[in-house]
């Protein structure tokens, strides 16, 4: 029998999907507020999702996070929480255009391919270090994604302001400066988590595997991502980079992050528990 939390997760996935479809259908409309249907729907999805994760943790312990399918779900949850937080604070659902598809796919991947977590095989992964490593990095990823979305929105809006036309959903975007601050704040909050998470992973790995670990593609990509991350903050802080240049950097950082995440499938050493 399927565990009940998997059912909740699937319900959440369906609700996110509905929200995503609705947001897409509203792209061209100027009047109907995006939030009238989308926010209650994905909000309900978030509740199911949260319950699902709490139950998973209750049944399997914290270690389930080390399974990639469970980590996907947790990342989606974090991103959704931030999305709702942004909605409450700024009354905008425009990031949903980018956030909801990602959340939807992450949740679906997790809900479809998930297997009951089996931790017993790997005593090494019971360590608290690993848990710390994974959860801080998840927060780092979520924040990076948000700042990526903000910079894309910034570009879109700057472009439409310059072109002097405001079609569809662009007219509902928050002010340029608000989008900008949002992205910068996300960077500032995410960076320490990312840094600490990577350091924790490295300490742990160098103890276990020694220097050879650092040639691993996953590690290289993670370091690259971290480097771009830092560059983003530095250019913003020192030269006030925003708009196009910042968006290119953010896109690059995001691409690096996606690769680093995907490298789990390539890496020999750094693997999630599930095959």
């Amino acid at each position, binding site marked *: 029998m399927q565990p009940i939390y998997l059912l909740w997760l699937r319900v959440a996935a369906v609700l996110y999907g509905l929200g995503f479809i609705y947001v897409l259908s509203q792209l061209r409309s*100027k*009047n109907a507020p995006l939030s009238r249907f989308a926010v209650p729907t994905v909000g309900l999805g978030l509740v199911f999702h949260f319950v699902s994760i709490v139950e998973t943790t209750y049944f399997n312990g914290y270690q389930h996070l080390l399974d990639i399918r469970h980590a996907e779900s947790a990342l989606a949850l974090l991103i959704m929480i931030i999305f709702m937080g942004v909605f409450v604070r700024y009354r905008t659902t425009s990031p949903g255009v980018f956030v909801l598809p990602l959340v939807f796919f992450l949740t679906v991947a997790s809900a479809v391919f998930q297997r009951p977590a089996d931790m017993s095989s790997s005593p090494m992964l019971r360590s608290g270090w690993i848990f710390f490593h994974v959860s801080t990095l998840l927060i780092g990823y979520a924040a990076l994604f948000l700042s990526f979305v903000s910079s894309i929105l910034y570009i879109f*809006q*700057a472009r439409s*302001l*310059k072109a*002097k036309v405001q079609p569809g959903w662009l007219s509902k975007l*928050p*002010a*340029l*400066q*608000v989008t900008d601050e949002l992205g910068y704040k996300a960077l500032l909050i995410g960076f320490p988590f990312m840094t600490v998470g990577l350091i924790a992973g490295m300490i742990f790995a160098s103890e276990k595997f020694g220097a050879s670990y650092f040639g691993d593609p996953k590690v290289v990509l993670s370091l690259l991502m971290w480097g771009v991350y830092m560059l983003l903050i530095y250019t913003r802080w020192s*030269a*006030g*980079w*925003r*708009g*196009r*240049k910042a968006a290119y950097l953010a896109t690059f950082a995001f691409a690096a992050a996606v690769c680093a995440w995907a490298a789990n499938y390539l890496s020999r050493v750094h693997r999630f528990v599930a095959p």
Partner: protein
Amino acid sequence: MNFFVIGVNHRTAPVEVRERFAIPESRLPEALEKLLSLEGVEEGMIVSTCNRVEVFARSRNGNCDLKEFVRNYYGFKPGEFEQYCFEHDHLEAVKHVFRVASSLDSMVVGESQILGQVKEAYATARAVGAVQSQLDMLLSRAFAVAKKVRTDTAIATSSVSIASVAVELAEKIFGSLQGKSVYLVGAGKMCELAARHLLAHGAAKIYVANRTYERALGLASKFHGEAIPFDNLYETVAKADIVISSTGAPHTIFRKEHGEKFLAQRRNRPMFFIDIAVPRDIDPGLNDLDGIFVYDIDDLQQVVKAHIGDRKREAERAESLVEEEVSRFQQRLQTAEVVPTLVSLQEHLETLRQAEIDRMRGRLGQLTPEQESAVEALTRSIINKIMHTPITTLKSAAREQQESATTVVEVVRKLFNLHAPKAPEAQRDTREQQQEVAVSAGQQNTGVTNPKA
């Protein structure tokens, strides 16, 4: 539904004519008194603004000659004013009130002032007792409809003047204008107007640079701003978030290389340039720089046009909303007409029943509690059964045409020898309560319940 309206507005009469119709606020009570003294008029209200003068009335018997009021009040000769007036009655008058309050009848559709003006006129008329029962209902409904139109359609959300569009765009870039500074290059009227708008929306500081320093000083002092000699222009502009330029210079003042310098000085914080000069003061190439946004007078006008288009589209939605509300109001009014009859019918029968029970008690002596309740149930159920048809007929009459409702009400009153409806004043106070009673009676589908129970 005996509502009537006569009046002149920006569509029917030029300003020279509207002037002659205008009634200053101090003279409104007197005018209302005159209106109420007109044959058949029960209630009245007068709205007098610069775009419209409209006289509303409700008559007792379905007709009243508002033209006569206009003739008498203003002392016009017959044939002198009719061509400028519009008149509506009954449902059309209701629709008109809704449209006026919702700003669908305004010169600038969606402007919010008119609602306040109608509310004022309503308050005045109420204060002198000219608005009491049904007209009161109509106006409270009109205010509710206006609110609904405002929230459910985007009719009032877009700005339709150059200055307000400038503010709107600035807010799209900076979010709140709180703490933002504005730089005026040139001290023209348009500059001043735009600056005034920006200040009203929270902009903190004004700088003024002008070829003639004295004029800069003069304008700056108006806003408690800072006047800057024109020679220092390029060194100081980067201090401002919003630059409004309207000089008479034949060549451009700000070119791309200036923009690059400003951005470097501001560490890439965005800047908003508004160019209302013709020929233009700002090189359009500036707009290509990341973080600089340039709007010239044509761009602003284009936004204004687009917004007017939006408003038109929204106005259509609002119109259909108003239509819906008119028919809903019609139904409500008819129910309101039937309800008092229903209530007095119920009261009447209940009194009869109680009296009969009391009489019977004298003959039968003390009853056991079981017998007592059996008698209660018996009498109640007889009355309910008999009353079922008359009450459903009354109710369906309320849903149908006005005329048939009135007839049914009269027949029922005659048949049961009910007294005339209560005075309008009392009727208004108990209106809600009566409707509640009627609703609960309808739900149980029984005829007679004690209204106090």
